[in-house]
């Protein structure tokens, strides 16, 4: 009985795994079949083996990893800046009604401007070096983080705040023990969204005079009419984006578990 159950469980696990990958596999299969029949114009859609070969070449030569490394550092720098400034400014805005009122209009107007629209100014302000690229990534990641912090503060249980006021909890402890733990869940989400956008902005950022990075790899392959390499770059961005998101999700679960037990004391 027990044995059977386990087998059955393995069966459902397999089914789940299969379902998880099925659509992607079907897509690859169709792509391959169309290539074999010769229905794909290689100038428009390269065949699957061509893409695999390019991927293999770029991977084994270490070039792909180098591009990934360069982009990753840019993203982490831009994201790190966005996270620290976003959280600090978010706290300030969230805790001060005056500041909230003052900054609201400006934020509402600046927020919808896509990072790519900042490129011309970024070049003039920061030149064509690393700074302008980090700025573009920063712009992308900043707003979701900022807003998650402000929103998080607004959503803290008013009863707790009331209580803190009645007990005359000092400002410092109020922030450290009530505000910070309270905003953690929405801020973790904000950070996740911010990192996702930061990673997406890497292509836009690397439109600026780059000579390395995954975004550059795509734009360079476009110049050289190599759609297979374009797909390699796109796929790399997609997979890394997914891995980063999975990592942050895992991290936030752990952090939030701590948060829940803490609140339960």
């Amino acid at each position, binding site marked *: 009985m027990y044995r059977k159950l386990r087998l059955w469980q393995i069966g459902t696990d397999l089914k789940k795994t299969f379902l998880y990958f099925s659509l992607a596999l079907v897509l690859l299969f*169709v792509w391959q079949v169309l290539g074999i029949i010769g229905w794909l114009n290689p*100038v428009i859609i390269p065949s699957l083996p061509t893409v695999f070969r390019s991927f293999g070449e770029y991977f084994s030569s270490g070039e792909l990893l180098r591009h990934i490394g360069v982009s990753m550092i840019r993203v982490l720098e831009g994201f790190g800046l966005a996270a620290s400034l976003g959280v600090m400014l978010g706290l300030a805005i969230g805790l001060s009604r005056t500041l909230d009122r003052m900054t609201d209009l400006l934020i509402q107007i600046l927020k919808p401007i896509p990072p790519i629209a900042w490129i011309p100014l970024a070049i003039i302000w920061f030149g064509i070096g690393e700074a302008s690229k980090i700025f573009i990534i920063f712009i992308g990641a900043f707003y979701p983080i900022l807003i998650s912090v402000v929103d998080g503060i607004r959503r803290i249980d008013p009863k707790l705040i009331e209580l803190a006021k009645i007990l005359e909890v000092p400002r410092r402890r109020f922030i450290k023990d009530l505000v910070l733990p309270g905003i953690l869940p929405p801020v973790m989400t904000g950070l996740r969204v911010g990192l996702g956008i930061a990673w997406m902005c890497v292509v836009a950022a690397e439109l*600026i005079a780059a000579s390395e990075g995954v975004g550059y790899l795509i734009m360079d392959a476009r110049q*050289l009419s190599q759609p297979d390499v374009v797909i390699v770059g796109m796929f790399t961005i997609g997979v890394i984006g997914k891995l980063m998101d999975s990592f942050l999700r895992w991290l936030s679960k752990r952090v939030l578990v701590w948060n829940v037990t803490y609140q339960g004391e």
Partner: protein
Amino acid sequence: MKKFLNLILLIGFMVMVFQPVGYGKEQRGSVAKELRIALQPIPFYAPLFIAKQQGWLEAELKQAKISVKWHSFLSGPAVNEAFAAGEIDIGLMGDTPALIARASGQDLRIVSITCSGPKAQALAVPKNSTIKSVKELKGKRVAVTKGTGVHHFLVLAFQKNGLKINDVQLINLQIEDIGAALTSGNVDAGAIWEPYITQWVEKGAIRILTDGTGIKRGISVILVSNKFAVQHPALVTALLKAYQRGYEFLKADPERAAELVANEVNLTSKQLLQVFTKFDYRPGISTADIEDLKKSEEFMRAHKIIRSKVDVDAFVDRRYLQAIGNK
């Protein structure tokens, strides 16, 4: 079994969806209603700009009820994309982007050389730079647009001065960015071409270290979709005739030609008169041109700009030139 059937259905559906991508665009244009030409707003194609301004092609094709559509692109690679998408029939570009397109598997042919212009390529430094010779660039930051003709010119210029390409820090920039980078001192030198040379020199932004004289002739080509050319040879020869006529016009009356071309490129007619002297616009395909194409092809393969070999002799199709009496 049912799942299997579903899969077959899905594949059938995908095939239907994908079919237009693979086939539709190629089939379009089998009955020519229009001739679609891609140009870049640079003085390399002056004779055709004259023909465009004068409306010669339109006049000639009017009887056959074929309209002429002129498209402007910022670079050769952009024209290549338009070729790949089936949006154009004829495109003018430098020899390097043409080789890139051919190497990527596009069925294109070079039907004529448009010009050679060694002086239309230059290695420039910021106006107040202390660098006086190419040799001094060792270890410096040099900007170039990867895969362009001047990239090849740059490598050759280095070779001539005993430098290797790895002796400098090469930075891949688009041409407008090279101008900005030179002006702001973000790079120490940049490889550029016309009309930017004339524009930036006159603005007082740059100084020329060396041009392509004795280094690289710098040829541009007329590229056609082979399928289109085979179906409509008369349209290709009509274009070549218009180009030839533009060339003769430019020879006979450069001042008027400069006025006409000034409407198409970002230079004044006065500047253009100077720029014209840097080019040999004579149409044709000479042995020297073939040699240059082969040298470019070798360079591009060695630098991994193209990944497959291009058979230059098969890439060039002289028949259309011969049809208009150009040997």
